[in-house]
């Protein structure tokens, strides 16, 4: 960190740190990460007797316990005579609420009653997960309104929870079964979803032909599969390579030739291979496909392509010239459209397998816009539009297209942001910290899981519930 500013150096000293704490900048919670479940029990509540969550936990080999409910007969009075909700003796690791079947405003009361005791009863990095019907799957004005109401509840829970706990809503389209939901519930319960907070994730039935095969191992879901990650020489891309390799994948690490030295290091560490390639060259897609067959044989196809390479060329629009504009759009958006077109051609050896996965990287700047980033925001909003359009285009093929939208992630890219602004970004989310590259990587690995066919055409934010664009 040679380039640390004066302020940043003061902040790093114990005196500076103490001052900051007194000013209200408490040390952020340490988040539980990795393929680790919460330690405490999983509370499982249902509102109208839905069994989807219970059956999904069953697929995962997990059993929920009945949660406490803030109902009159469970309440107590404290010394001052105030009504207290029932309290957990042992802290909950997670609380899963099956809100499928919730249709009326009255149905929301049991949701409140189940949440209230948990708000002070969760362990650190605990998880609140609400499973509900997607608004598209319910009929009637009140039911549709109530579906949206759950959204507001869960986002608020995310903001109120402390200690690194998160809250997310999973909405299910018509016909979703436990197998469609399992990889998502597993992800949200795990440390893998550490920085995914306050989000709504839509699950729908997997397309025909998009089911894991018999060899599928949820602990190493990508084993035997070849995936390609662009921009893998450092930062988030390197983390994606590591995480996907941990999950069993053989990773083709792509980055510009100039980054070849660190690219080779990443490739060798993850036991993958390095492809030095500028993704904006016209034959980039073909060169990726040729690398697949040139390393793994003519019959091998790519399980997933992760379009992580990205650049910023920030300027206020008043100062933004044509070159900075087009560079960013070329690398961040045009290149992946061209590469996808090649890889989706079944006639090209080394193209995308079926089933298969496409993942793009958007950004909260694309969601909300950002001062000085018209070009970048255009490209990142474009990525969101792209994956939505692709999932429509791929309606009849077992290939999913999704994007993640990272918020503030600690990398070389964000280390370039001035310290004070950086510290503000870090703090302006429910977890009061920047995310780590691995948090984005875990989310991508989940989207690429063979069992994640139920997630398609979505943009999942990895932002710790950042205020920006929320």
């Amino acid at each position, binding site marked *: 960190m040679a380039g640390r500013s004066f302020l940043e150096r003061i902040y790093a000293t114990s005196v500076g740190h103490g001052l900051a704490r007194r000013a209200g900048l408490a040390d952020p919670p340490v988040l539980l990460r990795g393929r680790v479940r919460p330690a405490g029990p999983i509370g499982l509540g249902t509102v109208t007797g839905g069994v989807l969550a219970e059956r999904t936990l069953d697929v995962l080999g997990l059993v929920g316990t009945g949660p406490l409910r803030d109902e009159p007969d469970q309440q107590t009075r404290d010394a001052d005579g105030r009504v207290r909700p029932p309290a957990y003796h042992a802290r909950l690791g997670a609380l899963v609420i099956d809100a499928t079947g919730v249709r009326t405003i009255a149905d929301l009361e049991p949701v409140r009653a189940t949440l209230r005791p948990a708000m002070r009863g969760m362990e650190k990095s605990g998880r609140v997960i609400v499973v509900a019907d997607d608004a598209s799957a319910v009929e009637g004005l009140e039911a549709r309104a109530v579906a949206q109401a759950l959204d507001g509840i869960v986002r608020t829970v995310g903001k109120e929870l402390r200690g690194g706990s998160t809250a997310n809503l999973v909405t299910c389209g018509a016909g979703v079964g436990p197998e469609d939901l399992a990889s998502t519930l597993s992800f949200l319960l795990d440390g893998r979803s550490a920085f995914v907070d306050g989000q709504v994730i839509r699950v729908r039935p997997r397309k025909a032909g998009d089911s894991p095969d018999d060899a599928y191992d949820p602990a190493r879901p990508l084993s035997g599969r070849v995936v390609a990650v662009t921009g893998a020489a450092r930062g988030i891309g390197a983390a994606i390579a590591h995480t996907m390799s941990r999950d069993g994948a*053989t990773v083709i*690490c792509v980055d510009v*030739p*100039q*980054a*070849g*030295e660190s*690219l*080779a*290091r990443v*490739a*060798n*560490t*993850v*036991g*993958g*291979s*390095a*492809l*030095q*390639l*500028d993704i904006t*060259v016209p034959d980039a897609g073909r060169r990726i496909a040729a690398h697949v*067959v*040139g*390393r*793994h*044989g*003519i019959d*091998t196809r790519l399980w997933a392509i992760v379009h992580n390479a990205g650049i910023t060329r920030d300027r206020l629009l008043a100062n933004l010239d044509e070159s900075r504009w087009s560079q960013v759009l070329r690398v961040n958006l045009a290149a992946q459209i061209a590469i996808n077109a090649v890889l989706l051609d079944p006639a090209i050896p080394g193209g995308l397998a079926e089933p298969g996965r496409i993942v793009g990287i958007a950004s909260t700047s694309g969601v909300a816009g950002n001062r000085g980033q018209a070009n970048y925001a255009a490209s990142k909003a474009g990525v969101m539009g792209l994956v939505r359009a692709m999932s429509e285009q791929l309606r009849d093929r077992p290939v999913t297209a999704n994007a993640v939208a990272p918020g503030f992630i600690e990398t070389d890219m964000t280390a370039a942001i001035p310290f004070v602004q950086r510290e503000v970004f870090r703090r302006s989310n429910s977890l009061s910290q920047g995310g780590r590259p691995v948090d984005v990587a875990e989310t991508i690995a989940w989207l690429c899981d063979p069992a994640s066919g139920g997630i398609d055409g979505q943009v999942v934010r990895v932002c710790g519930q950042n205020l920006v664009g929320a």
Partner: protein
Amino acid sequence: MVSDRDGRQAVIVGGNRTPFVKAGTTFAEASTQDLLTAALDGLVARFGLAGRTVDEVAAGAVLKHSRDFNLTREAVLGSALSPHTPAVDLQQACGTGLETVVYVANKIRLGQADTAIAGGVDSASDAPIVVTERLRRALLAARRARTPVQRAMAFVGLGPADLAPVPPAVAEARTGLSMGESQALTTTRWAITREAQDELALASHRNLAAAWDRGFFDDLVTPYLGVTRDGTLRPDTSAERLAALAPVFGRGPGATMTAGNSTPLTDGAALVLVAERSRAAELGWPALARVVDAQVAASDYVTGREDLLLAPVRALPVLLERTGLTLGDFDLVEVHEAFAATVLATLEGWRREGLGDLDRARLNVNGSSLAAGHPFAATGARIVASLAKMLAERGTGSLGLVSICAAGGQGVVAILEGM
């Protein structure tokens, strides 16, 4: 022609090298072993070999510390390859890189290996500094001494001049002439003009620069220590600039060899991945070109009857005779540019041997050592990797010739065929 056992063929799968830089510059702090390890790790990454074994790694260096007696094996151990990968050091001056390719290709064809890595490295920056011969003898005597007095006596008689370190000289042991001085004799004898030399040097820079710009080296070079292109490459050089340089070798008005048409001392490492053809197919690896045959020869330069760097003139006729090929059969010809004049004299030598005139449009089409630089033992693998890729681009059956001159009056030539 060497017959392949059970139809086994050795194919070039791909290659990797560091960028080459002028000695004493960016790689000055890197040891020979560091450079070789970097080239190896880049190759391992390119082909996804981390943790895997290849049957043998053969490499060498011309300038070598005695501590580097197991240079290649040490580089393997420092690399991402499996520690079960055996390695051998080979050395034939500037022929080293090409000879390692011949060595592993022969093993592969004989069934003694299925996969191998071959190449070389040199760092003129990391050259061993030795002590004077008198001091060396004194130190050895002191080591044999049994008493402190005997030990002290060992050093009696040494003068200040004996204590100065002896820098490495790239000079021929038997003539005392440096490579450039030796070539200057050849240049004069073969009446190679300054204009012809400068023209060749210019073409080398232009061709190499164009190849870099085209992305030709995207899968042949891995950056090292922040260097992403060959440091000696001068994309903007011109006939005028080259013509303005003062001669550095030879004497008097006949001196034509300049820093522009001679290779500088260079640091770098280069390797190729070689495999038995069907094994490569099993592994899903590409086969760029097949190693067809090779020949080494030596010249009688000590008597002055022949030229130090023209042994390829003796080697090629033997190779063509054995393979039934003619110089005109080759689509691409790579003649290592030790000096521009060496190449020109070699072509003239081949002509006088009755091999015919080489179509210059086929010569060093992506540049060679004048532009890229010449880390002695690395040059062979640099050329083989680039040529194999060019032949693969041209298609099955295209033919390529490599010719490399080496110190000691030696020369190696080899034939590759595009797959």
